[in-house]
C-alpha cells in the first residue's frame, strides 16, 4: 500500500503527534537488540489505550498492511524487527498495572508494563514476579509473553509461560478474545500455553494476568571459580545429581568474566577460566541444610575458590555481573550475535568443547555465559561488522552451533525465540508436517499474514535486504 495512504489511515485513529513518520523519529524503531538487522516501517504509532490498538489492527487487516507490535525492543532474535512498509505498534504507553491483588497472588497488567515494575509493585506484599530475563529493568510483559522469555531462575519455576494465568488479546484479524482465568488451574485446552511464545504471530496481548509468588525467605548465593570451563560444567552435573534443586545455576567463561568485571566491577575472581554461580532459595532451615551439602559438592568438584554472598548487596553484585554480561561483552567487540540453544544437561561439556573448536576454526571469539542448570547455552559470537564478510562468518558459526544443539537432542532456542534470526533453522528441528500444523494455526489467527510477518517462519522478506551493514 502507498505509504501516504497508510499514514492517512493511521491519522484517522491517532492524533498527529502519535503517528511517527519522519526518518529521525523512526530510527529508534528500525532495529531491536539483534542489531545486525534493520528495517524502516512506514510509521510508528503510539497507542495510549487498548481501543487504539484494536482499531489499528483492524485497519491493518482491512488494508492488508503488516504490523509489528513492539515493547522495549530488547529481542535478541529480531522478534520486533519492523516489516518494511509496515506499521510498528509501540506499546510502551500501555504501561499500567491495572490490578494488583496480593491475596490472590496475581497482577493484571497492560502489555507495556516493564517486567521489573511488576515485582517492584508486588514487593510491599512480600511477592514478586518470578521470570527474570537479564533485560528485566527495561523489557515489557507483552514482549515476554510473545517470546516466552526465560531468565536465570527457570530451573525451579519455569519460564513466562508458567506464570501467565489469562490473556486478553486482539487477533490479527481484529477479533478480541479472552482466555485463561484467575485460577492457577484450568479446564479445557491450555490456550494461554499456546499463546505465550507465539512470537506475535497470532495478534497482540492487550491485558495479561500474571501469577505472583511469595518472595523466598532466604537466598544463599555461591560463587565458585574453576581452572577450566569443563570443570565448571562437571560441577553442574554433580550439583544436579546431589538432589539439590537450586533456584539458579549459571556459568560464565573467561571472556565474559573479564567483560563483566570491566563493566560493573562485580568482584569476580579475575584469573578464573570459569565461574559457577549457584543460588539456593526457600525456607531458611532448608536453605541452610542445602548450602552445607552444596558447599561440599562444589569443593569436591575442583573449585579453587568458593565464595558465599555475604549479604543482599553482595548477592546483587554477583547477579549484576552476570546479568550485564551481554552488554559488557559489547566492550570487547564492536558487534556480537547471541545464540540461546539448549542441549541435554549431560551433553553440556561436549557442546562447549565443540563451540570452542568452532570458534578457532572460524577465527571468531566466542564468549560463553549460560543457564547451566537448564542446559541453555548463550554463546556470544564476537565480530566486527565493518570488516567485509565477518557478519556472514559469524552467522555461519551461529548456524553451526544451532545445528550442534539439534544434533545433541536439544533446541535452537531456550528463551529468546526463533524471531527472524533463527527462522531458517526451525525446519531443521521440526519436520515439514510439524511446521504445517503450526502454519495452519498461524493462518487461523492471521488469515492476512500481517502480524509480525517474517518471524518464526521464513517469508518472502529477504534476510539480506535487512542487514545493517
Amino acid at each position, binding site marked *: 500500500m502507498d505509504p501516504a495512504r497508510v499514514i492517512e489511515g493511521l491519522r484517522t485513529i491517532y492524533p498527529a503527534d502519535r503517528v511517527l513518520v519522519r526518518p529521525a523519529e523512526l530510527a529508534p524503531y528500525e532495529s531491536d537488540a539483534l542489531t545486525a538487522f534493520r528495517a524502516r516501517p512506514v510509521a510508528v504509532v503510539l497507542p495510549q489505550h487498548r481501543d487504539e490498538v484494536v482499531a489499528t489492527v483492524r485497519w491493518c487487516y482491512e488494508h492488508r498492511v503488516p504490523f509489528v507490535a513492539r515493547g522495549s525492543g530488547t529481542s535478541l532474535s529480531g522478534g520486533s524487527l519492523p516489516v518494511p512498509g509496515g506499521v510498528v505498534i509501540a506499546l510502551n504507553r500501555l504501561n499500567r498495572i491495572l490490578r494488583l491483588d496480593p491475596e490472590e497472588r496475581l497482577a493484571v497488567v497492560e502489555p507495556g508494563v516493564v517486567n521489573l515494575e511488576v515485582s517492584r509493585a508486588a514487593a510491599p506484599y512480600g511477592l514478586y514476579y518470578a521470570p527474570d530475563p537479564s533485560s528485566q529493568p527495561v523489557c515489557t510483559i507483552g514482549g515476554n509473553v510473545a517470546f516466552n522469555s*526465560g531468565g536465570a531462575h527457570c530451573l525451579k519455576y*519455569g519460564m513466562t509461560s508458567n506464570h501467565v494465568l489469562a490473556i486478553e488479546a486482539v487477533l490479527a484479524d481484529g477479533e478480541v478474545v479472552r482466555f485463561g482465568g484467575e485460577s492457577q488451574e484450568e479446564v479445557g485446552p491450555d490456550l494461554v500455553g*499456546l499463546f505465550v511464545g507465539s512470537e506475535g504471530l497470532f495478534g497482540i496481548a492487550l491485558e495479561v494476568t500474571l501469577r505472583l509468588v511469595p518472595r523466598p525467605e532466604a537466598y544463599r548465593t555461591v560463587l565458585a571459580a574453576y581452572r577450566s570451563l569443563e570443570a565448571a560444567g562437571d560441577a553442574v552435573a554433580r550439583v544436579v*545429581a546431589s538432589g539439590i534443586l537450586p533456584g539458579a545455576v549459571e556459568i560464565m567463561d573467561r571472556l565474559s568474566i573479564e567483560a563483566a568485571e570491566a563493566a560493573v566491577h562485580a568482584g569476580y575472581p579475575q584469573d578464573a577460566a570459569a565461574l559457577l554461580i549457584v543460588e539456593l532459595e526457600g525456607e531458611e*532451615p532448608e536453605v541452610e541444610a542445602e548450602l552445607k551439602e552444596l558447599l561440599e559438592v562444589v569443593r569436591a568438584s575442583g573449585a579453587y575458590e568458593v565464595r558465599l554472598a555475604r549479604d543482599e548487596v553482595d548477592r546483587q553484585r554477583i547477579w549484576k555481573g552476570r546479568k550485564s554480561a551481554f552488554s559488557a561483552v559489547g566492550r570487547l567487540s564492536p558487534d556480537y550475535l547471541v545464540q540461546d540453544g539448549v542441549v*541435554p544437561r549431560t551433553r553440556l561439556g561436549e557442546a562447549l568443547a565443540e563451540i570452542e573448536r568452532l570458534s578457532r576454526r572460524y577465527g571468531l571469539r566466542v564468549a560463553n555465559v549460560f543457564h547451566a542448570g537448564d542446559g541453555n547455552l548463550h554463546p556470544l559470537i564476537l565480530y566486527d561488522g565493518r570488516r567485509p564478510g565477518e557478519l556472514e562468518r559469524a552467522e555461519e558459526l551461529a548456524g553451526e552451533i544451532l545445528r550442534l544443539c539439534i544434533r545433541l*537432542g536439544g*533446541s535452537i532456542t531456550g528463551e529468546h525465540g526463533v524471531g527472524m534470526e533463527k527462522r531458517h533453522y526451525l525446519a531443521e528441528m521440526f519436520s515439514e*508436517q*510439524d511446521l504445517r500444523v503450526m502454519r495452519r494455526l498461524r493462518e487461523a489467527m492471521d488469515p492476512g499474514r500481517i502480524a509480525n510477518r517474517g518471524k518464526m517462519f521464513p517469508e518472502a522478506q529477504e534476510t539480506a535486504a535487512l542487514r545493517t551493514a
Partner: protein
Amino acid sequence: MSVANPVLRPADVASLQEAVREHPSVWPRGAGTKTALQPPEGAVVLDLSQLRGVVDYDPQEFTFTALAGTPVREVEELLGRHGQYLPFDPPLCGAGATLGGTLASGLSGPGRYRYGGVRDFVLGVRFVDGEGQLVRAGGKVVKNAAGFDLAKLLVGSLGRLGVVAELSFKVFPAPRARRTIRVDRSDFEGVWEVLRALYTSPFDPEAADLVPPGTVWVRVAGRPESLAARVRRLLDFLSHGAQVVEDDGARVWEEAREFRWVPSGWTLVKVPVTPRRLPELERELGRGDSRRWYSAGGNVAWVAWPGDVSPLAAVLDRLGLRGLRVLGPPGPPFVGRPELDGFGRRVKQALDPLGRFGPYA
C-alpha cells in the same frame, strides 16, 4: 462406555494414525479412569493401552519420554528408584491413570501447589492430528521456546484437538522426607483464614488442601535434617489447632489423589477457582448434599455431587465458574459457565478441520 462404541487397540503409532484416518469420529482412551468422560455416540474408541512403555529415561537428565498409554504408576516407580518424581501428584494413579490421559484431562493432584501442575512439567509431545499426521511439538529438553507450544495446548484438551501418542516430561529430585500437619478450626471461615495466610507466606509446603467443614492439611517435604525445624516454625505460624499427623499423612493424600472421599456413583467435578472465592462457593454448595475438597491452596474445588448435576451447573454458571466432570455418570464434559472463547474455536478448526475428535466445547 456405551456398548455401541467399537474399540480399536492400535499396537503402534502407525496403526494409531491409520485408525484416525479411517474413521470420521474417534475418541482416545487411556485406562478410562475418568469415568464421566465417555465417547460420543458412534465414535470409535482408540484404546491406547498397547502404546505403553518408557521410551527414553536418563536419570541424569531429569527428563523422560514415554508412550501415552503408559500407566503413571509405572513411571512413578521407575523415577522413585532414582530418587526422582513428578511433583504434581497425577490423580487416579492408583486406579491406573495413564500419562496421556493425565495430560488430556489436564488434572493435577495436591502436589501441584508447590511447583505447578501437569502443564508445567510437560516438555513435548508427539500427537496425531485430525488428518492422521503425526506431529511433534516442544522437545525433550527442559527449556525450549522453538515453535508454538502445542504440548501445553493439549493439556486439558480431552482428545478433542488430537490424539497424544508420546510425551516428554521434566522431573524433580524427590524430597527425602515428608510431614503432614493438620489444622482444625471450629468453622469454615476460620480454617479458610489459615489457608489464606499460608498462601501468601514465604512458607514453602508441598501441598495445602482445605477440607470442609474445618480442616486444612499441609504437607511439608524436603531434607530430613531440616524438616523438624521447618515443621516447628510452621506449627508456630499456623498457631492453635495445628498438629503433626501420625502416619505422615500418607492416608489423607492418597485419599485426595485417588478421590476416595467421593461416594460411589456420585459425580465429581473439577472447578478452577481462586482462594478468595471459597467462602462464597462453600455458602452455595454447603447447604445441600454435595461434598467439597479444596486443593492447591484454594485454586481447585473438587465437588462431589449426588444425582443430576444441573443444580450444580446452575450454581457454577451464576458464580461465573466452569467445571469439568471427572467421575460418575457420563455427560457433557463441561458444566457451568459456557465457553465463549473464539481463540479456542479457531485452534480446533486448524487442528481438526474434519471434526473427527468431536465438538470443541
